[in-house]
């Protein structure tokens, strides 16, 4: 177990006793991938802040029910998925503007990049949830493969295969190839 993991374990133990600072530090440390996971469950960023606040609330009120502190990330991921799904069920559909990514460089190159970005985004949003989750986690840059497997609660090899499949599906969609349906 790394120093960081050891430290996180201590934080979880302190947080379970209701320590505000420990709770806040834990959530802040896991904020990036957590937000990515919520986004991947919902497929867009509507009400992202509301969901994140509800996740904070659930963590604060339920942390004492966590039986295995070393599985905090997996527990947090389950809780986050649950909250994201709950919000998705009761929300009303609305139009959301997609921000244009700000590329700097050759205008022709920028247009090509923007177009590619739009197509990749569309392909990511069209992925089945479990592939979208692994893709977003991998690109959040916060977690190692082992931590991603922990969050997804699957063996590391399964996580790697899912990531490969997700990337294949996106490349196929961009290339206009027919999608295969994978069962991993």
């Amino acid at each position, binding site marked *: 177990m790394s120093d960081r993991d050891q430290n996180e374990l201590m934080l979880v133990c302190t947080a379970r006793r209701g320590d*505000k600072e420990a709770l806040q530090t834990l959530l802040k440390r896991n904020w*990036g991938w957590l937000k*990515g996971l919520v986004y991947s469950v919902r497929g867009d960023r509507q009400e992202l802040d509301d969901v994140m606040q509800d996740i904070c609330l659930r963590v604060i009120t339920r942390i004492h029910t966590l039986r295995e502190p070393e599985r905090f990330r997996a527990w947090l991921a389950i809780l986050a998925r649950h909250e994201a799904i709950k919000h998705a069920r009761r929300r009303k559909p609305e139009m959301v503007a997609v921000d244009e990514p700000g590329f700097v460089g050759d205008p022709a190159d920028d247009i090509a990049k923007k177009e590619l970005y739009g197509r990749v985004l569309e392909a*990511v949003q069209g992925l089945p949830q479990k592939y979208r989750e692994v893709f*977003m986690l991998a690109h*959040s840059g916060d977690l190692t493969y082992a931590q991603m497997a922990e969050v997804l609660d699957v063996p590391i090899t399964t996580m790697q295969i899912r990531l490969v499949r997700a990337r294949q599906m996106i*490349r196929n969609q961009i290339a206009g190839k027919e999608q295969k349906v994978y069962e991993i």
Partner: protein
Amino acid sequence: MSATDDRLEILIGKLLDGEISPAEQRVLDRDLEQDGRARELLEQMRMLHECGCQIVRQEVRPGGADPEDLFERAWRQSRGSAWRRIIRMDGMPRFAVGLAAGFLLGLLLHFVLVGGSGLPSDRNDSMVVKDTSPQSGGRNGGWPVLERRTPDQVTREVEWYGFTDQAGNQWLIEGYREGVVKPASYHGGL
């Protein structure tokens, strides 16, 4: 997609995600050197990786409330009123709280309704019962008549004491505390 392609994609993925080991790096370098298709795949996946990171930066990270603010709001919400917490409760805790509240309410009603009719001494009704039997020449059809006690008739800090009225009747009085008397029993021959 063959197993070799999968292996190559896993290796390239690991390279891009910073998870490749030195041994895997050597295998990948060899593949890239020998296979033009592998180099093409690396280029495609590199672009896809950049786009993936861009999506996280553009779609997930920007804007929104500060994590600390959201945490503070959630913290305040979690420390809401007792009523809110009870309403949020479910299952056994809620049942237990309901049961306790019912018990307390029942206890309160018991003391208000039943307790209110008893304990005459606590009401400080400084009355004494005078014997009104026909032998003593009383009125009111034989019922005891309450008479107002005068302050000088009180004997201080005595539990039981005797008292003879102007008509010569003798009384046995129970004194609870200063200024409070309770009718006891009267025996004509006392």
